[in-house]
């Protein structure tokens, strides 16, 4: 199949197998930023812009992009350069394998929603999986970027909080004694107004009869759990099988 398209601003023409994906074509044409993480269109690593819309290149048959404009990170470094420093500052790059697809989708997001809320950021980028970061640093970085772009210099979350006498910074909100005192005060109040601290309190909880702390109001451990004991005998028999 003959294919021609505009890749990162340059016209290219090539012969390709009819079953080729856009992903394979881009790798063949040295766009190594485009990665594959799953083969089932779940991970977002292969995101590129097709006529300015973010698409999963692993799931786009090459034939469909004939005559189209395709942009990969190789062609958008300048635009990415506006915010990647904020990601680096948080250490949000980590292994980096998901970064290009994620950065491409951020570019698409910022073009579409110039000033997204945190919730909009999460929604828009939800298709970009990352296993290293737990996502929080990425959201923080984008928030910092958006704030900085608006000229806000306060409220940026730049540094993790470290406390300890070694560094002369003591965490002083609460001491151990104060915590224990407040816990026992709360527990005392709870005992006063029966069941206030009961985990199963509240009408309509579909509870079994025994086995919850509700039924062991006398606080004695041994009465605490007929239902839990039943579980225990289950597991004991499971254990017996390998003994």
């Amino acid at each position, binding site marked *: 199949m003959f294919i021609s398209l505009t890749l990162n601003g340059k016209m290219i023409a090539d012969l390709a197998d009819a079953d080729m994906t856009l992903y394979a074509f881009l790798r063949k044409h040295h766009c190594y930023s485009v990665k594959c993480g*799953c083969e089932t269109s779940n991970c977002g690593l292969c995101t590129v812009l097709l006529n300015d819309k973010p698409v999963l290149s692993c799931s786009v048959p090459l034939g469909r992009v004939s005559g189209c404009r395709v942009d990969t990170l190789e062609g958008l470094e300048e635009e990415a350069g506006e915010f990647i420093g904020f990601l680096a500052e948080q250490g949000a790059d980590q292994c980096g394998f998901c970064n290009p697809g994620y950065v491409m989708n951020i570019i698409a997001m910022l073009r579409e929603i110039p000033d997204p809320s945190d919730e909009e950021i999460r929604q828009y980028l939800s298709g970009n999986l990352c296993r290293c970061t737990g996502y929080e640093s990425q959201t923080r970085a984008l928030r910092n970027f958006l704030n900085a772009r608006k000229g806000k210099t306060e409220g940026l979350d730049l540094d993790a909080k470290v406390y300890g006498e070694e560094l002369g910074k003591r965490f002083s909100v609460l001491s151990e004694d104060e915590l224990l005192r407040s816990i026992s005060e709360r527990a005392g109040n709870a005992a006063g107004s029966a069941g206030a601290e009961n985990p199963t309190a509240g009408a309509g909880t579909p509870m079994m009869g025994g086995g919850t702390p509700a039924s062991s109001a006398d606080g*004695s451990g041994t009465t605490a759990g007929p239902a839990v004991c039943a579980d225990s005998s289950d597991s004991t028999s499971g254990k017996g099988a390998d003994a």
Partner: protein
Amino acid sequence: MKEFVRERKDYKSVGKSIPKKDSTQLLLGKPVYTEDITPGDALVVKLLRSPHPHANVLKVNREVALKVPGIGGIYTWEDVPQKRFSIAGQTYPEPSPYDRLILDRRVRSVGDPVAIVAGESEKAVDKALGLIRVEYEILEPVLDFRRALDNPVLVHPEDNWIPHQDASDAKRNLIFHEEDTHGDVEKVYGDCEVQLDRTYRIKPVQQGYMETVRAYCEIDRYGRLHCISSTQIVFHIRRILANALDIPKSMVRAEKPRIGGGFGAKQTAVCEVYPAFVTWKTKQPSRIVYTRQECMTIGSPRHEMEVRVKVGAMKDGSIRSIDMHTLSNGGAYGEHSTTTVGLSGHKSIPMYTGGCEATRFVADVVYTNVQSAGAYRGYGATQGIFALESAINEIAEQLQIDPVALRLKNIVREGMLMPAYFGETANACALDRCLVHCASNFGWNEKYPVRDMGNGKVRAAGVAMSMQGSCISNVDVGSCTLKLSDEGTYNMLIGAADMGTGCDTILAQMAAEVLDCEPDRIAVFGADTDASPYDSGSYASSTTYITGMAAMKAAEELREKICKIGAGLLGCSVDEVDFDGEYVYRDASLATAGAPAADGVCEDASLAGESTGNSDNGDAPLAGSAADCSGSMQRVSLAEIALKSQINNRISPEATATWSSPVSPPPYMAGMVEIELDKETGSVEILDYQGVVDCGIPVNPNLARVQTEGGIGQGIGMALYENITYNEKGAIGENSFMQYNMPTRLDYKNINIEFETSYEPTGPFGVKSIGEIVINTPAPAIAHAIYRASGVWLRTPPFTPEKIVLSMQQGSEWEAPDLRCWS
């Protein structure tokens, strides 16, 4: 010169959050990974895999497949060396048994390779794979790990199976057995007012690294095998490939570029032996790239474990005895099986050292005919901590004692001897501060009481603690080479593997602390067995603690050498100079009798040139006649020293240091979670997750925070979403990201992490470790919160909505049937 000493409060580089050295390259998607930097025209290697869990290969008909144009070779068990080896990346002699062949006549799990196919294109190889015909003698499998021990069906009946542990016995399907007892557990347990006996199970969850395992091999210009792979363990890869191919280790060079995530999976040579075999056989470059499905079904996941915990306590909440028995499922091969299981006890029980009178830990690991397990962040501790922390929460709820108060009554504190942790002392321990700090950040007192939101939803909280190690004591070796280069910059060579964690950066920060420079001035290279100094590799949370110490020591040694060369240029004794990062200077306070006081400062480089010129004339020792320039030369710049090191020089401007530790100081952490549980649907939403970590002194707090957030993310995935189910053949159903639900950024928010420091005297700059400990708290904390909200204890993650709702209906934990156990 003065010995390098720096007060903790004055650290300049350690403790600073700087971006990772590779961040720009990674964020701009530059070609830095295995598939990006190796030639695209290498032979494509793929594997034909067994559909049966246990069978003998009788015949492989490859005649038709070989006729596919572009097929370079098809290999079966008859073609490979018959010496068994292990693909576990561990220090020799590997604790894992030698139980693998590149291809075996006996296949031991669904997905075990039967044939290697190599060809010019993926299409040709795929076509050939479909044309190979295999005749199997189907054997009865042993699929249920609770019935594997002493089962008449043996997974490894072969005679050339080599164990490296006395307790291993393949004739019993037993990979390992261990017992560790302190005190009379039976008696103390019997004397206790409260006795809790529970069993917990953890499934073989997946690491979920984004870059699937892959490797490229070629014959280098000296005729040796050169392997470039996405691995955490280049030096072990060298040994593993040499063992597998039965060739000298000197004939192998292993290298890693950037790695797209590892989390322990790449501490096993999952795929490297196949292209290595093809390249050694054909002398052509070859490359294998595992599909996601291969990674999910025949990779190297967490060990499935069943942990029985017996805790003896008094009504006042004091915990007197802990008795744990772990049964671990090694699967078809024994990688990491003998070692992971130990952590389930050794890295959970010691958290309750305070007041605990007796502990016992017994472990068995068995072979079964399912996917073999390997290393995954937490490495057994995750399983043990889920069990023990859940049991402690159950005790607290039974006794109606606040679980945070109960913990503060029983936890290990600084200075305590931990009998259940190899008799080590907790030299640096801020676990108590972590708990209090975490409770304060979380608002424990407000959130612990269950709150019915009146809309069918309930809010509740849970708590858990965690510990890990900082290396494998008396085993792990870390090394670092530092070189002074042109213009006073440095090169650092390491054998540890930065897998995105940032070790290249934090090791440079530690060296920069000693060399008094910006970390930017140090270029880091790693890892290549031909160029890097020996390092066991990046695992066991050891890089910061072990390789970090090597980096610090190498920097100290290089500092001395810089002073020596500098003193030569200044024409004085090394005792009279010091180094401030930019200049080696004469220090009047150090000067011996008769040396002139340092008054004027000479910044003119030409003077240094002169002094170089002087030495150039002959072989005069550098620290030669002080008369030449004493009085005029008071300092010399690092750039001049670097230049001097390249002209008529006999002092090597480089230093290598190597380190091992007799102890493995545990980091500690506290985690608290608030959930909202929908009683109608059973779905759980994470509203808030607070964690406070004691990793000693964090070298780069932002990177440590990302480590922690990422680990908690994986822990939440394991607790709520990531399920593994087997069919009746022991094959895994969740074989892609369609079915295996790793968390997205919509699945949690408000993870907040802070740090409590402690100072570990055996670590460089007081550091411990961070990489693994962070994954351990979510599962037990979430199980606790679910109990608080629903009244049901769930003892096998993941806690899916289906499981929660059905468990609430039946009043005890609901389990989906395990189809493996039907056979």
